[in-house]
């Protein structure tokens, strides 16, 4: 225990005596972690954005004018019995007219043609939501059943696949850029770690020489450098957390719509899962920086 305590003491001394290089090392590690967190956050936001858009996908089934409510109800219960269907909502002709006007409020020609007709041209409508967008083709096909086909005037499917594809494409490009940037920062951080250890060895060459002379084990001579690597990581993770949390707080209200149904929104997700992310980063970065330190010692520390 005494030996561990002393190794930690020597590590702290190394850190302070080599303060500027230590701070640069911590900063580089922090930039790496911030970039990784940015990629993680982007993934999270993109997943939620895609779910949000997917939730908006629905099929409107417009029935012909004069189709009885009973037949519409039969069609609705048939649709509800399908495994692909999540929800079926019935819209009255009046609601359908309002809905149509709302959707085309910027298209004056359509609104004018509606005025020309002079009466409500809509029959009842069913609005169908699928459990998964991939289920829509089946739902649309099932409505071609002879039992319903003649009652249906039109099926209107808002296809968001192109938009989802666009989101996915953009996110994957940004993700790729983020991963590339993380790798570059990590590489630079490791180079800085190696250089910091090299400088540490140079600065402490007298002490290391005396240590060897008076019978310090090579483990004891090396341990402070490895502890220092862990210290850099812990500080970098702490600083990253201190920077990431306010950023999340600022983004949270702006992204609230994407996190509807998630307790606490974006902040809630990070309060629940953030510590796992930071702990994982701390463990992995500690191991990687210790490996870089071991490499530097192997190269520059002659004991």
């Amino acid at each position: 225990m005494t030996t561990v305590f002393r190794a930690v003491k020597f590590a702290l001394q190394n850190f302070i005596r080599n303060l500027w290089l230590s701070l640069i090392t911590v900063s580089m590690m922090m930039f790496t972690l911030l970039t990784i967190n940015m990629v993680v956050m982007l993934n999270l936001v993109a997943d939620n954005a895609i779910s949000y858009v997917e939730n908006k996908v629905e099929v409107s089934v417009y029935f012909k004018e004069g189709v009885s409510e009973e037949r519409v109800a039969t069609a609705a219960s048939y649709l509800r019995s399908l495994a692909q269907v999540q929800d079926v909502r019935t819209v009255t002709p009046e609601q359908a007219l309002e809905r149509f006007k709302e959707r085309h409020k910027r298209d004056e020609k359509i609104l004018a043609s509606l005025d020309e007709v002079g009466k409500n041209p809509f029959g009842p409508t069913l609005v169908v939501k699928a459990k998964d967008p991939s289920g829509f083709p089946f739902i649309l096909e099932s409505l071609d059943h002879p039992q319903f086909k003649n009652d249906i005037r039109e099926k209107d499917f808002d296809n968001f696949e192109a938009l989802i594809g666009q989101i996915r494409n953009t996110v994957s490009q940004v993700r790729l850029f983020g991963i590339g940037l993380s790798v570059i920062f990590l590489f630079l951080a490791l180079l800085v770690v190696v250089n910091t250890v090299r400088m540490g060895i140079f600065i402490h060459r007298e002490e290391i020489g005396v240590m060897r002379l008076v019978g310090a084990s090579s483990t004891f001579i090396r341990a402070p450098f490895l502890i220092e690597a862990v210290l850099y990581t812990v500080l970098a993770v702490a600083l990253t957390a201190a920077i990431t949390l306010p950023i999340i707080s600022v983004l949270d209200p702006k992204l609230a719509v994407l996190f509807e149904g998630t307790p606490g929104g974006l902040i809630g997700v990070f309060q629940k899962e953030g510590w796992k992310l930071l702990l994982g980063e701390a463990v992995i970065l500690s191991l990687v920086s210790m490996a870089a330190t071991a490499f530097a010692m192997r190269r520059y520390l002659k004991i």
Partner: protein
Amino acid sequence: MGRACLWQVDFMILLKNISKIYPPNIAAVRDVHLHIRPGEFVSIVGQSGTGKSTLAKMLYAEERPTKGKIEVGGWDITHIKNSDVPLLRRQIGVVFQDFKLLPRKTVFENVSFALEVSGATNKRIKEVVPQVLKIVNLHEKGHRYPGQLSGGEQQRVSVARALVHRPKILVADEPTGNLDTFNTQEIMELLKKINEFGTTVVLVTHNREVVNALRKRVITLSDGEIVSDVEEGRYKL
């Protein structure tokens, strides 16, 4: 003989046909054969470059012999493993011409450093360091930094540091090389005192006056070879 029965031996140091050859083919030490008994005070003398320091370095495994066999306290250290070197060095105190003190540590800290890095408890440090500082007569200067001491005092700190592990052997490599006559005498008196306590002292020097005043065993090296080995000898070269 293993490490377990260390020091219960007839010879504290035994060198059998030791040679040290540096590439491409420079012999620093050639076929040296000698033994040193427990409690002896031996001076190894010779001109610069005759292999005195190389021989001393082989005693505390700073250098490994190219040929031959070395036993220290019955422990064959010819091919000592790197992991065993710290154990050896805790049993051999070493003093150098340039003191090798840490300028940013006080006298007390310089001496306690040797114990700290070897895993000694704080209790033992508080017990041993004042004792050795008293032996070297620096117990009242423990709070000073090396820069605030004379050369002789700095060398006494270095001796104190070498003594904290209570070694059976003290190797002093040109300990008076940087000192004036007065301080040289002081250090030699200290080494004699340590020897009287039972520690085997190996003194490497080329200081004629020191060797002649000692009237102890003198081994003379020339071109890496022993050319004379005399009990109560004098500096001959």
